[in-house]
């Protein structure tokens, strides 16, 4: 199993702050996906990154895929309470996706 390590595990910040969460592995992935999960619901895809060094932006969220395709980061600018949730990265590993354990983000007003 190709492991994906996410950090930090928990993050509590105030509205307006910036933050970065990380997804690291010793394995190379052909692609990497980021999902957000809200309490009581299933994860929902935010973005897929495919090319090493790729940067994708989704409003205030910026996703980057490492040059070697072993790691990825998610940066949120001016966080809002609506950003609260569990952020999961998932790497394509053979027959299915492998998920990291997630970063639980709480944004307070």
């Amino acid at each position, binding site marked *: 199993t190709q492991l994906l390590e996410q950090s930090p595990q928990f993050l509590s910040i105030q509205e307006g702050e910036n933050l970065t969460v990380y997804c690291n592995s010793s394995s190379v992935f052909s692609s990497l996906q980021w999902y957000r999960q809200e309490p009581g619901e299933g994860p929902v895809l935010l973005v897929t990154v495919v090319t090493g060094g790729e940067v994708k932006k989704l409003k205030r969220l910026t996703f980057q895929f490492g040059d070697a395709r072993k790691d990825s980061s998610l940066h949120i600018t001016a966080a809002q309470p609506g950003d609260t949730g569990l952020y999961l990265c998932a790497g394509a590993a053979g*027959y299915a*996706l492998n998920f990291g354990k997630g970063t639980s983000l709480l944004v307070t007003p």
Partner: protein
Amino acid sequence: DAGITQSPRYKITETGRQVTLMCHQTWSHSYMFWYRQDLGHGLRLIYYSAAADITDKGEVPDGYVVSRSKTENFPLTLESATRSQTSVYFCASSVRNTGELFFGEGSRLTVL
């Protein structure tokens, strides 16, 4: 409504009982998956299916059985439930094995 639905949403059962969690999707996606989500372990793949009548084991298949007689349905059965199977179970579908996953809302199972 289009989408992926799981039932039941909540289930309490006793050790040794058989439990079946249902999953139905309306997109005609080829691939379907069952994951369990536990604190400290994240999402772990139990079983997946590439098409009707084609299923295969994931990372944690022991104690579970699946079937897929129709493309749209992918039930998960715990033949003799154990306390360690207390978890939240998510069904998902996709057009390919490592493509975007569309998840159901989850089934929270408690085994007493």
